[in-house]
């Protein structure tokens, strides 16, 4: 039961890789996805800077990226990946498709959160002559913050789950360890350990997300 071919070093490296992949893709994915989600709200018909050209261009692109199975996405963008990180393998190379996978996902969740902001708030912003940037920054984002945090939490967990597929390009990480040792090498011990670690990760992410959201909503 307790015998395994995975070394402690390997395991620690996998932890590091997972942190790195999730952290980095979440960061960049948010930097891309959050503004994108906001843009989807404000450029839509009736939005504060209604722009049907932008909306009708970006909306399908997001759908397109969202429609590709992760492995296909990963292959499809190899040339792009190489352009960005000079290689198509390893943790760095996994991050590019992860970012591309999570950004539109975040955009959709953000879009949904921002759409829930009361119209009256937007009117207040308009009446003060707020620029679109100010409306976003001082009105929409703060008012949607609780929901945005929960959305990012959801995205982070989906991302963690997607890093498991990073193994395809030698990305490593805990999920890959679970798949390539636990699943493909039938190493039940490492399967158990990795699953427990993943559960703990998710538990922590969700708890932090819930706590922050509740704090923002001033429920605690």
């Amino acid at each position, binding site marked *: 039961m307790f015998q395994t071919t995975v070394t402690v070093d390997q395991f620690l490296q996998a932890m590091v890789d997972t942190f790195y992949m999730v952290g980095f893709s979440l960061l960049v994915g948010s930097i891309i996805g959050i503004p994108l989600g906001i843009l989807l709200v404000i450029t839509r018909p009736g939005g504060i800077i209604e722009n049907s050209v932008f909306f009708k261009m970006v909306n399908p692109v997001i759908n397109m990226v969202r429609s590709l199975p992760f492995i296909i996405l990963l*292959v499809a963008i190899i040339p792009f990946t190489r352009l960005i990180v000079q290689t198509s393998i390893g943790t760095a190379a996994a991050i590019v498709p992860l970012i591309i996978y999570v950004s539109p996902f975040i955009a959709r969740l953000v879009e949904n959160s921002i759409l829930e902001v009361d119209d009256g708030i937007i009117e207040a912003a308009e009446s003060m002559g707020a620029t679109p940037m100010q409306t976003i920054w001082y009105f929409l984002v703060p008012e949607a913050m609780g929901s945005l945090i929960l959305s990012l939490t959801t995205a982070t967990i989906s991302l963690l789950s997607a890093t498991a597929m990073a193994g395809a390009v*030698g990305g*490593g990480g805990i999920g*890959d360890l679970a798949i390539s040792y636990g699943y*493909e*090498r039938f190493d039940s011990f490492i399967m158990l350990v990795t699953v427990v670690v993943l559960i703990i990760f998710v538990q922590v992410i969700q708890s932090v997300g819930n706590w922050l959201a509740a704090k923002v909503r001033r429920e605690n």
Partner: protein
Amino acid sequence: ACGNKASSDADEEKTTIKVGTSPGPYSELFIDAIKPILEDEGYTIETVDFTELIQADIALDEGSIDLNVDQHTAYYKNFNSEKGASLTKITPIPTVPTGIFPGRKESLDDIEEGDVIGIPKDPSNAARAYAILQKAGLITLEEDIELVKVTQNDIVENKFNLDIQEMDSAQIPRALNDLDYGVIPGSIVYSSGLDASTSLLHEDILKDLELVAVVDEKNKETKWAQAVKAAYESDEFKAYMEEHNQDDYWFIPEEIR
């Protein structure tokens, strides 16, 4: 095949070999038996884990890794022609044969109309599976078909109207309860701890389906590549195989016997 980082003049001095490894016995064999030999000769071995053979080949082609020991000739040739790559073998290596294993049925004699048989879905292993099914006389494939490209659609005759389920090879041992038979690649037999001797039928390993050590064409003659080849052919390795292959788990190609 662009953006090659490894500069050729450095090749002569190259002492670090990057190996793309995949789950299964071939990478393990390399690490257990070949790596120590190479290290004794002053080489440093780095490994990069892949779960996808294609990705390992892509990495090999672009020069991110130097060596791969997880595929057969048919596979890399197909990769070459599809991707315009120039991978080449340096030596055949020990190969674990695929076998038909019992699921709900104990023996191939019990085969009946409509039986369900699970085979690996990845092309490299699917090729072996179709070959062994043909060998067992259960199906007939189109003649002159390139084995690595075989799919269900190339079956010209399916005598028992078998329900052939293509699935993840690692899934097959886990699903034997729901299959009448499973065609399981040696690597998975090994990993899953199945008793290889329970196999109902062994494949005859065709030349093109022997595993090979693969490098980029332009590295074929480098010192380090030759060192790898030499390691597989070395007496030390032979002794290792002698010791570790008592139950004939491995099929050892003629060249390195």
